[in-house]
């Protein structure tokens, strides 16, 4: 069913996918203070690759992705699990948020925290899950 995409779709996908990916990272990082967050960002990233998938097919998308979506899920879950332990080092209950202010040049700070690691884990899990389903469905379709 997947006919080769039209010219407009081809060109649009090429330019939109990187923009969408940047947007997803943006949403991910601003999530703690402004609308956004790992879940939304993961969905946006999946949307980007879904567009690519519809235009160029599963094989090309897999190449572009470089990582198997199943591994993305694994990485996401691992990050989620990793983020719950640092609290133990401070003698606090598991999952207690830990914050580190990392100084940057120019008198500014980067807010680094376990919730951020956790959110990145959510991002990868959502992204990996959606891509796993989409690519698998497309592959059987092309088959």
């Amino acid at each position: 069913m997947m006919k080769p995409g039209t010219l407009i779709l081809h060109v649009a996908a090429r330019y939109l996918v990187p923009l969408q990916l940047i947007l997803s990272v943006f949403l991910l990082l601003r999530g703690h203070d402004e609308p956004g967050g790992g879940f939304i960002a993961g969905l946006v990233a999946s949307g980007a690759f879904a567009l690519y998938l519809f235009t160029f097919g599963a094989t090309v998308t897999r190449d572009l992705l470089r990582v198997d979506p199943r591994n993305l899920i694994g990485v996401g879950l691992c990050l989620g699990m990793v983020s719950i332990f640092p609290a133990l080092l401070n003698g606090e209950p598991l999952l207690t948020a830990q914050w580190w202010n990392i100084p940057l040049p120019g008198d500014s700070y980067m807010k680094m925290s376990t919730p951020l690691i956790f959110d990145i884990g959510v991002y990868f899990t959502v992204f990996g899950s959606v891509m796993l389903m989409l690519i698998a469905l497309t592959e059987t379709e092309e088959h």
Partner: protein
Amino acid sequence: MQLAVLVIFLAAALTPWLYNRLHGQSANVLALVPAALTIWFAMHIPAVAGGEVIVHKMQWVPGLGISFDMVLDGLSLLFALLICGIGTFIVLYAGAYLKGHENLNRFLVILLAFMASMLGLVLADNLVTLFVFWELTSVTSYMLIGFNHQSAEARKAALQGLIVTAGGGLVLLAGLVMLGSAGGSYSLQEIFNSSRILTEHPLYVGMMVCLFIGAFTKSAQFPFHFWLPNAMAAPTPVSAYLHSATMVKAGIYLLARLQPELGGTELWITVLTSVGAFTMLTGAFLALRNTDLKKLLAYSTLMALGTLTLLLGIGTELAMIGFAAYLLAHSLYKGALFMLAGIIDHEAGSRDVRELGGLRKKLPVTAVCTLIAALSLAGIPPLFGFVAKELLLESLLDNMFSYVILGMVILASIFIVCVAALVAIRPFFGAFKAAKDEDKVHEAPSGMLAGPVVLVILTVLAGLLPGLAGDYFTLPATFSVAGHEIEGYLSLWHGINMALMISIVSVLLGLLLFKNWDSVYSVLRKLDPVIRRGPEAGYFKFMDGLVATAEWQTRVLQNGSMRNYLRTIILTLVLLTGYTLLSRYQLHWNFGVDFTFYELAAVVLLVAAAAGACLTSSRMGAVAYMGAFGFFVAMIFILFSAPDLGITQILVETLSVILLVLVLFRLPSFSNISSPMDRASDAFVALLTGALMTCLIMVTINVQLFEPISGYMIENSVPLAHGRNIVNVILVDYRALDTLGEIFVLALAAMGVYAMIKFKPSTAPGSNHHAGTLILPSKRIPERDIVHSWQEIHQRMLEEQNIVDARPEDDEDSTEQSSINEPQGSDSETKGEPKS
């Protein structure tokens, strides 16, 4: 002591590594672990014999009152010595018995894990810890019985053992919880020391019934005895260790442990004496019907377990002394006998007493050991078995307990003398008979002989010096069982009394029975049909029922029709929630809400989209309407200033439309297969759900059950969680555990979808042509019930709903493709794997 248990677990964990270096020799090295522990425990003998109770405290889950405390008193010390001592020889024996077996390392791992669990069980002070170890022994026992997992018989026996003991374990858990709540503590020591009298507690009867079932299943008491003889499918070291010396005594241990606090009531005495006596007689009687050495011994173990239960039930001081002595005697001779039976099997190639004879010249050491151990089994002086049996008879005579039980004991000991003679005389005397050639039969290696020889020497020593054995081993255990010190001693010679007379008579009658065994055996064989209708038939009935129930509920609930699933789920929700709503809170009507124009417009469009989705006649249309519906919901979120929800909703809707479109092409054409009646009932269910939700929302406006938590979250979002976006703070900080669970669910769901898409009928579980091989005799499934592909499932569903005509069996692809799958502009070769 915690260390003692952990060391064995550690040894189990290191076994694979050790095995890679040492191969066959690893067992000899590993045997050092239990050997060292035996010595360590033996060093505590003087202190414990002096009445000391050694307690090692350790926290585990203090919040729930669960500790890892371990207690060493007379009873647990006796058990610990048996577990580690016999365990040492079993490990040695296993190394020789399974020499060259490819899975020897796996065997040693599980064996050591079992040993550690069993040790933990007898040392644990906390009821919960005790239960954990109890279940661990069940699980490891399951793996050990099923060690030869290629044999269907071994698998079946393993599963049977697991179901009976783990099922009993669950009942036991209930009993332990009742005991804990009645006693006010989960610590055995605290329960014993508290002033509460548990036997008068209202929960006493319920607690005892549960504890009895737990103990009886584990210790194979009638009517749960059937799993034990079947467990003989395990390799011999396992039978010798688990199913005679240690694990099956766990139930006995528990009863003995609880005797001072819970024993002595009418319920206790009645149940234990009757069940014990009946198990004893059944075991002894069924033993006579067997010719397999291991089965003979297994049934005689049943008899011994029954005797121990009986002694606990009698509960007099003499009975307590007898209990501990019998426990030790049985472990010594039965462990030895099993290992010897394994040697005979290993060397002569058969375990059937009818096929063996005259082996004494070829296996001299084995023959002598078997003879002595069997004499102890038969209760003949000067062996320790005799001391124990005299005490049993005396404790019965002492009280004039009941003539019926005394009669049963005498009958059982006559049978057991015959069994002992069968085991000791048949294979070794008479003309040479064996499954192997005469010159290929030779004495077992020293690793296999070490255990039996040592155990037999101990039996003789304990018999000759009963005072010593009594003072250091059995009497301290007796004190723990009785709960206080008892005046008493063990001796070989009690003078010429009634008990001795009974012994002599029973031995003579037993030998007479042995002389005529061949004819007795053929008579007993005629009882087969009766015995087949025993408790084991009940077990099979139960399992059949379980499978039938599963089939029934799968047919009714899991019938594969999506509409049915939805209807069931939704109606359950409506009924339960609706009932709660109506019974707890009245209906509230709240129409005084202000609408702005654009809110109203969004709602009207929302309803229109929903109606469109219901009425459309194309699938693509339905998907589009659903998408539109989702977007309007997102719009409402945004109108009520929830941007995060709105964004998420839009993204989810977009992706679900994409997913639906991808799936859409795999579905058959959009045919209207439901009758107007069906549609009406669907509409009814839908309206009901809508009405419920409306009522719920109305109620939430008026009823405020708790102070909403959102105030706290809003206040602390910035100071505590350093984030201004409260939705995100809730997701990753306040409720991070929920989110963590959710991403795992999401990952699992994705894996599930992936598995379904990549489904290969040829390797799927449905393609197995034999089913139920584990629990029940295997049945061949009729060819038409075997699932080969998705197409077939779909075809069958359509046939059932009279949408397409049933097609002849072998007519495969051509008709199917055209009848179900209208090519939707797609590749006509597409394997349309329709999802239902």
